[in-house]
């Protein structure tokens, strides 16, 4: 593995993995405590439509995916300000519609399917300098927003109604959260692929939540866990010649299962 670091593509993979862990830990924590992992999944899948359109119209897939993810997040923000049942349906519809649109666009564009596979299942060993810039920029934005509005994010997540009574612009905070989730989902697509984004936004945070008692500690621990899973997965995948995204998810899932057992034992419950 050490000698593999001599390759530029491996260096890029490590850098993006570490940068993505920060976004993943912070946004994943918010997704988890707000119980919105299905939302993250549906945003990720909606972005597939943007990818297809980008291939068809000939612009950057990253831009296409980002636009569709953000538009999807905005759509859900508007719909979810109403009834809960409608939000659920809207997310399910968006999930599938994005995939369907993407497939149609890609067929029309005649794109080689290997490109497609890299978006669906990740392409950690093929990240570019622009991906690193995107990851770094997103981390900076997320860190600025969360440090500046931490108490508001905490309040809206814990008790939205009460936060509104305290004059917190809850709809704005929620919109901001959805857009950051969309951008993080696009970034994570590079690593695990859009199909598995949902796992990276929920597993590290879920484990962190078992062992921490405050939101910021959960964010820090989730980021560290994501970094560990990413780097360990990358190493293991390199040694065993397996797809890195899938290995990362399997490691995370294994750690989650172990954590669940530890939590059960600690709380004295039967297994």
């Amino acid at each position, binding site marked *: 593995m050490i000698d593999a670091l001599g390759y530029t593509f491996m260096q890029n993979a490590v850098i993006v993995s570490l940068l993505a862990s920060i976004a993943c830990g912070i946004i994943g924590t918010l997704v988890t405590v707000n119980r919105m992992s299905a939302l993250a999944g549906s945003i990720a899948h909606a972005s597939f439509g943007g990818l297809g359109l980008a291939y068809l119209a000939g612009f950057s897939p990253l831009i296409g995916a980002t636009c569709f993810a953000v538009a999807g997040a905005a759509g859900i923000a508007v719909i979810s300000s109403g009834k809960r049942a409608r939000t659920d349906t809207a997310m399910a519809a968006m999930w599938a519609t994005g995939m369907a649109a993407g497939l149609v666009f890609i067929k029309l564009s005649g794109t080689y399917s290997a490109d497609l596979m890299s978006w669906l299942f990740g392409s950690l060993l093929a990240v570019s300098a622009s991906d690193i810039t995107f990851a770094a920029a997103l981390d900076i934005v997320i860190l600025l927003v969360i440090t500046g509005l931490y*108490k508001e994010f905490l309040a809206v997540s*814990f*008790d939205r*109604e009460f936060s509104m009574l*305290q*004059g917190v612009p809850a709809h704005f905070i929620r919109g901001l959260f959805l857009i950051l989730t969309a951008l993080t989902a696009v970034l994570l697509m590079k690593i695990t692929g859009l199909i598995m984004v949902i796992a990276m936004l929920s597993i590290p945070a879920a484990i962190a939540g078992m062992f921490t*008692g*405050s*939101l910021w500690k959960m964010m820090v621990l989730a980021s560290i866990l994501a970094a560990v899973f990413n780097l360990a997965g990358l190493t293991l995948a390199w040694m065993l010649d397996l797809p890195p995204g899938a290995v990362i998810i399997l490691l995370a899932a294994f750690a989650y299962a172990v954590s669940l057992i530890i939590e059960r034992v600690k709380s004295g419950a039967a297994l």
Partner: protein
Amino acid sequence: MKEAIRLQGVSAGYRRGNPIIHDIDLTVPKNDFLTIIGPNGGGKTTLLKVILGLLTPWEGTITVLGGSPEKNRSAIGYVPQLIPDDSFPITVMDVVLMGRLRNAGLLRRFSLKDRKSAEMNLARLHVGNLAGDDMNSLSGGQKQRVLIARALAGKPQILLLDEPVASVDHDTQKSFFNLLAELNNDMTIVLVTHDVGAVSAHVKTIACINRTLMSHGDTLSSESVAKAYGCPFELISHGGIPHRILGNAKESES
């Protein structure tokens, strides 16, 4: 006496043609301790939401301390229902600090004054020693006190409580009502509950709600309770209703 809350002909709901509360007239004088009882689905929470300005009524007018509910929101301390299953990672201190959000303002950290206020209110409710604890490690009664401390941290003139005794045992209920009575010295209190047994002797006035407001005043006729619940008054009268109300009910029975 000046009034804290006044509702005139208020109707509200979530779907047109299906009002949850209908044509409500209610005047709450300052320093009243009002308990509104009603069955589940009777519109108790909806009524509170309208008073809080979270739900705009279809018809009627509402004033809180002489102004609109939105304008005078900071004068109301709200204690919501306890959420039974909650694994949210938050400390007691962080919960109480939420009551200082308006004071602290956007993009700023909580000041020392905000923290002092939070600590003071926790201590006032005898849970000062729990400030650093995980909210989830607390009992139902302790959580209830923390939520009241949060409401008080904003220095309200009116305290609204939604089903505050639903998940606490009888002894906790007793000390809880003593606490409310103490707060009632300088604060108007409005409490809604479906549990008639939870109406304590400290309560000054009682109203019944089941879509419409059945009764309001310091007496409660057996008829209106029976209407609200569809059950005979005897079932309810064992639950610790204040004496003067019981006395009145007996008069109307005889």
